[in-house]
């Protein structure tokens, strides 16, 4: 079996790489106005079978929350078939969103949004043009302008380096190799059922699913089929604080190196890659352009973390062949498809300009609990593998206010374990769970027939 690519929203299937992004958030005003907007959007949704080489000037995708589905007045028995993690508000405890990252301090109005239109454009002109069209079609619904400046969430390239993020790292090097059919696929490829709904199996369960005892479950599963859950998450990154941290702690952690090299090595140890993308596993002493896009490495030859610290970000979020705790604690490595881009202007140096900047990302999966929440738990406290010396260690690039987690980042070296104290450099400003419906589902939601 192969899911029909023309029915799947394009950003689930592949990365677009367009330079301009805008995420328009709406609160549906009424079933009629919500359907009117969806009617406008439906023929414009980018699907996975579209040729993007070259592609149109604008790409568009749509997500809707559970509250959004409720606002369309769908059948209550059908709505009940969706899983509890999608129905409920994002769990701030699981995500480690405490203190400055607590939902009480998220961008105003963010949690009211129940429909998102993701826009991707080649130019500012085309982005503005499609934005105006969408806003006109959204009459009767309320646009949420959540940023502190009172505008929509935008994104795009920071400079000339594709994938560059605010802390200077390069994103987009490693993505799950998804097997989009039931053919064998390449070694290590991941079953599409981990990302697409409507194909639940005992080995890869997802919801909704069909139960003989629940008549509405077949309709719910049909509605969800070829869709995905998308966790839309906005993080503020304090670049000045990050650079201050590198400047102060780099030379202290690596006094044997020139200060600039010490800072770069510390940055690399936090991520697990040098800022140009070179994996530490491949080249622990300096970046090597030959390896800048390398994703074919494992950690079994670095059990002690001498090359790549065990709590480094990429090692926590994808431990590859590292030993994991046995079930029930750990059942496999949770995989998510990541899409996203930085927002805000680029800042260099250690002096803050009080401008908001960060990352707006989508984490796409077929189970928010088994995939996204599990990753958040792993980042919050690295207690999923016997490899960790400190089970309270945390991902150094997440927010660091979880009370039970250690603030010390351990860097094993040949001469002993060094450690740096992590400041809080990342703050959550919003999280929402969207369903990225199939094109069939979008058309049905836009229609007048009661679902």
């Amino acid at each position, binding site marked *: 079996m192969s899911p029909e690519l023309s029915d799947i929203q394009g950003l689930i299937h592949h990365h677009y790489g367009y330079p301009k992004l805008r995420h328009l958030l709406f609160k549906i005003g009424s079933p009629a106005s919500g359907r009117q907007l969806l009617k406008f959007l439906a023929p414009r949704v980018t699907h996975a079978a579209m040729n993007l080489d070259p592609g149109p000037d604008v790409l568009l995708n749509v997500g809707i929350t559970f509250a959004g589905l409720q606002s369309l007045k769908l059948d209550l028995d059908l709505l009940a078939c969706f899983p509890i993690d999608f129905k409920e508000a994002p*769990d701030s405890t699981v995500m480690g969103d405490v203190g400055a990252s607590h939902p009480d301090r998220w961008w105003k109005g963010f949690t009211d949004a129940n429909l998102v239109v993701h826009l991707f454009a080649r130019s500012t002109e085309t982005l503005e043009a499609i934005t105006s069209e969408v806003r006109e079609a959204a009459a009767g619904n309320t646009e949420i302008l959540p940023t502190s400046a009172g505008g929509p969430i935008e994104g795009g390239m920071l400079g000339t380096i594709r994938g560059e993020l605010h802390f200077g790292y390069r994103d987009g090097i490693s993505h799950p190799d998804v097997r989009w059919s039931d053919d064998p696929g390449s070694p290590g490829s991941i079953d599409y059922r981990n990302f697409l709904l409507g194909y639940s199996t005992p080995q890869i369960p997802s*919801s909704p699913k069909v139960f003989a005892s629940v008549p509405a479950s077949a309709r719910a599963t049909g509605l969800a089929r070829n869709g995905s859950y998308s966790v839309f998450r906005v993080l503020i990154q304090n670049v000045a604080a990050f650079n201050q941290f590198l400047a102060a702690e780099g030379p202290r952690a690596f006094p044997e190196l020139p200060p600039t090299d010490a800072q770069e090595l510390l940055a690399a140890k936090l991520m697990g890659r040098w800022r140009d993308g070179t994996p530490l596993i491949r080249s622990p002493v300096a970046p090597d352009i030959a390896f800048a896009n390398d994703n074919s490495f494992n950690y079994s030859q670095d059990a002690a973390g001498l090359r790549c610290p065990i709590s480094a970000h990429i090692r926590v979020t994808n431990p590859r062949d590292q030993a994991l705790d046995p*079930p029930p604690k750990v059942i496999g490595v949770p995989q998510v498809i990541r899409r996203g881009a930085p927002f805000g202007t680029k800042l260099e140096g250690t002096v803050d300009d009080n401008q908001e900047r960060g990352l707006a990302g989508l984490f796409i999966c077929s189970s928010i609990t088994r995939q996204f929440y599990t990753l958040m738990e792993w980042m919050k406290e690295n207690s999923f593998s016997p490899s960790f010396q400190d089970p309270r260690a945390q991902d150094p690039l997440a927010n660091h206010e979880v009370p039970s987690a250690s603030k010390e980042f351990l860097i094993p070296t040949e001469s002993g374990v060094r450690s740096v104290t992590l400041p809080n450099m990342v703050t959550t400003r919003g999280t929402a769970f969207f369903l990225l419906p199939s094109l069939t589902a979008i058309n049905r939601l836009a229609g007048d027939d009661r679902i």
Partner: protein
Amino acid sequence: MATALNLTLRLKQDAATQAALAQVKAAFAEHIQPAIDAALMKSEIVHFARVVVIDDKYIQVLTEFDGSKQVYTTFFLRALPEVFKTIFSLAEDVPPWEELQDEDKFYEVASNYNVRALGTKEDDDKAGYLFQALGNTTVKEIRAALAK
């Protein structure tokens, strides 16, 4: 810190269910308890667990464990399916076992019937008060310390 589950189900009051309940009570120590013991000991994430019946009107599974609620609930389902099938068969207003065998549905039902304790918990907005003499020490850490 550890997490508490206070699963509380209303028992059906018909004669057949009450007779089945009486059998469960009679058989618990010899036939059900050992299975729970073995599974929980092996898990290395459970601090405490007990099953309580109140006036033959309610049955509770009270337990404290480390880590994710979702992981623990799924563990219960996978490690002790017959125990939970028995418990849920006695309860009112729960889906049939065919549905409950699904991880997502089981977690949802367990969450819906999890009664919150009074008070608040520092690290969990959704949870009530839970006193822990050993702070946030895990089962694994306690066992490792005792083994030294």
